[in-house]
């Protein structure tokens, strides 16, 4: 298939958001907290019915929503799971998300799903494969998708390019947008011994539409992307660098384990907003 781009238009800037988690449903619906937008885990709502979908409908009435999946398995060499894609498309018709994202990874082959974001070699063969899969998925969904860099713990010895070169080529050839996970860049950089700023500077400014901010677990010799801690100082520093390079990008706090009360996460959401206000020029000038 010839390489070509989807002319879908760049997704809008949504502001500063949070990952929607069931623990906070009641508080959000009761209080309408000042969060600009929510990211929902697509698979949590790819269900027949019941309370999760009812809550999601109410959230969608009040906030912009983005769908973020973990099982697209875009880099798998197994045939695409069209049943999954149909479920994703059906959910998108219900939610009308601002965009649909997943990860540059694979989750299984031979009909198995390992429920992990597994690493790939950065080879030309892998790049051609993923470009064609992204194009197929984008045609199926009728929109450009957004792909996120994952935290990795291993590197393959047959890689022919860096991760940022791979992401850049993938985005340019397939037309997908990029979700720049600031924490994942920090984790992978530590694990593989490179400067996270080199990664950051290698990603094209015009392709990034979202930042993820999250916490991790430091094991001394390596870092594991656990999403069970507050964002650490080093990742906040990298966020500042990311703002300086990419400018105004929709940002959200991602917490998946040891989920604290909403107020605690609001502090982190507000910090993303405050730092952006300091780093970036105001959207519009005001006389006086």
């Amino acid at each position: 298939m010839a390489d070509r781009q989807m002319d879908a238009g760049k997704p809008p800037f949504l502001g500063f958001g949070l990952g929607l988690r069931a623990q906070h449903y009641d508080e959000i619906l009761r209080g309408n907290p000042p969060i600009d937008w929510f990211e929902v885990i697509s698979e949590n709502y790819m269900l027949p019915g019941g309370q999760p979908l009812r809550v999601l409908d109410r959230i969608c009435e009040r906030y912009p929503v983005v769908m973020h999946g973990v099982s697209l398995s875009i880099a798998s060499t197994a045939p695409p799971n069209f049943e999954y894609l149909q479920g994703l498309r059906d959910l998108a018709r219900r939610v009308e998300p601002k965009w649909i994202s997943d990860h540059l990874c694979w989750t299984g082959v031979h009909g198995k799903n390992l429920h992990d974001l597994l690493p790939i070699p950065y080879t030309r063969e892998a790049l051609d494969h993923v470009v064609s899969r992204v194009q197929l998925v984008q045609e199926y969904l009728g929109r450009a998708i957004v792909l996120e860099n994952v935290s990795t713990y291993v590197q393959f010895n047959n890689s022919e390019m860096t991760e940022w070169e791979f992401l850049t080529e993938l985005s340019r050839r397939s037309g997908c947008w990029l979700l720049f996970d600031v924490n994942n860049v920090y984790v992978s950089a530590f694990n593989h011994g490179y400067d996270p700023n080199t990664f950051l500077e290698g990603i094209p400014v015009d392709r990034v539409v979202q930042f993820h901010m999250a916490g991790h677990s430091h094991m001394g010799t390596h870092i594991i992307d656990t999403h069970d801690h507050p964002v650490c100082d080093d990742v906040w520093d990298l966020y500042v660098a990311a703002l300086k390079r990419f400018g105004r990008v929709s940002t959200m706090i991602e917490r998946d384990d040891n989920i604290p009360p909403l107020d605690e996460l609001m502090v982190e959401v507000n910090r993303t907003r405050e730092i952006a206000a300091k780093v970036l020029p105001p959207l519009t000038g005001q006389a006086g």
Partner: protein
Amino acid sequence: MSDFARQQDDFQRCILTGDDSVLTEILDSPKEKRQVLLGVYKYAYGSRLVEAMRSDHKLLHGYLGDEMFDAMGKAYVAANPSQHPNLRWFSQHLPDFLKSSEPYSDHPVLSDLAALEKALNDAFDAEDASVLGVADLAGFAPEAWADLKFQAHPSAFRLDLSTNASAIWLALKSDETPPDAVALEQPCRLLIWRQDVTPMFRELATEEAMMWDEAASGIPFGVLCSMLATYDDPDGAAARGAGYLHSWVTAGLLAGVSAEN
């Protein structure tokens, strides 16, 4: 097979079986050996799936305790690699696994408890449907009732248990000491469903269970009453049938009614 496909094949086999041949294609990091780094994925696989099982089967987890539940979970993970992209469905085969795999099959209460939790989980996010109200039935003329057919709510599910697992479930749910597990002479006939957003269950008498099963399969009300007449006082069959029907409607168990011959 391409190099990329073969590499994924090797990587997955490592995670599922422990075959580390993929290590020859992985680099050490500046601070750690490749075996340790690959181990992050191997450990995460089992622990993530067992954690999902703990979440789906909180009361079975409480009944068995951490150590026994996790050992059971690892055995289930080994026997049932996930084949669905959504973790929500990973534990679906647990009741069957517990019924057929030693040593768990020696304790039928475990399979029953897992089946009850699974049924409640399934009711929680079952398909939505409008709920039949008493007023919907009031519009039918008396002579039409014999032909009325009922449609069960999509969340409704019948489950027969061979043990007192429902009593154990209730005790565990209330943080009370559960009774000893016992095998029942007659099965415990449960009806599980979702009322508004809350999963519920209740025990049915043999007669009501029969009527529910037949009604849910499309048998009209007149025939249901004739069947009830074979269970108890024939003269009171219609009244008993109407009583059961009324309780189902008020509990939100029915999604529709039709008067087709």
